[in-house]
């Protein structure tokens, strides 16, 4: 899915951070992959950093480390 990059560049020019841009992109209907690409392009982020922005902005977890810790918990329980 393509997107209007200029729309998000204007948000950044207005002071929006990566989380704010991500929330707007999601509201615009962008899926996970395009959102990741957008964040990486606009903020020069690695994959891991972009993941963290998305997880925290969505309120899924306080950090990527904490989120993955929960995944570890769930998998350990499932493997037992």
């Amino acid at each position, binding site marked *: 899915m393509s997107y209007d990059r200029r729309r998000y560049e204007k948000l950044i020019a207005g002071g929006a951070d990566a989380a704010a841009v991500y929330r707007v992109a999601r509201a615009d209907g962008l899926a*996970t992959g*395009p959102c990741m690409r957008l964040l990486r392009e606009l903020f020069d982020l690695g*994959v891991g950093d972009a993941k963290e922005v*998305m997880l925290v902005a969505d309120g899924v*977890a306080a950090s990527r480390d904490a989120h*993955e810790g929960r*995944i570890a918990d*769930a998998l350990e329980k499932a493997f037992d």
Partner: protein
Amino acid sequence: MAVTGLSKYLFRPVEDVVRDLSALPVAEQEATIAQLLEASEHTAEIGEVAMSALGLDDGKLLELALEEPWRSGVIGERSLVGVRTAQNAAATLTKAQEAQLLSLGVGKHDFGLFLMGRPVLFEMPAVTDTQEALGGFVKLTDDAIASGIILVKDQGGGATSLFAFRKRTFEVARAFDRPHVDFLGCEIKNHRLGRLLARQGFEPATVDVPEDLGGGTMAVMHKRYDTRDS
């Protein structure tokens, strides 16, 4: 993707690109689209943009060479081949293969690219109340389906989603008669999760990030499974 000076045309709604290109003199339109085609490995996508910019839809693609030779030169052999190959490849899908790809959350528009061996993105629909979606990429190789998880947005930890993802990926592999599944966990930060995966036989590696996710490289934990295992 290095497209110095051309990036303003990429990753934007086609109608914007069409408007901008249409405002250029014809000679510049040709040159700009030709550069776009040369600059990108995404020939199919750029071909689509070029076709749209020139007022053509897919069905018109083969007519253009007869009607307006300069346009066929602009579209270029690479994109022409890319678009046609993707379309032809997608036409060979069986209903079962299509159903499995849809189940994983691969978009229909990406079927052709998938069959050509390009990594395509998926967004697997939620399988639990606490999950939004599970996003990643999937790639068809000669002997395997390679499937990478980028993000599991599940406040419950995601075990149900991950096992559903595993099951569906195996089903995709079987539908395409591939004997192996390569699973990749991408950019894992949590040491406990890394150790847990290592105990399950996952190994660290560095792989290319699909261009649709921004390119570059990333660290992964990966493991190859035999489709007869599950």
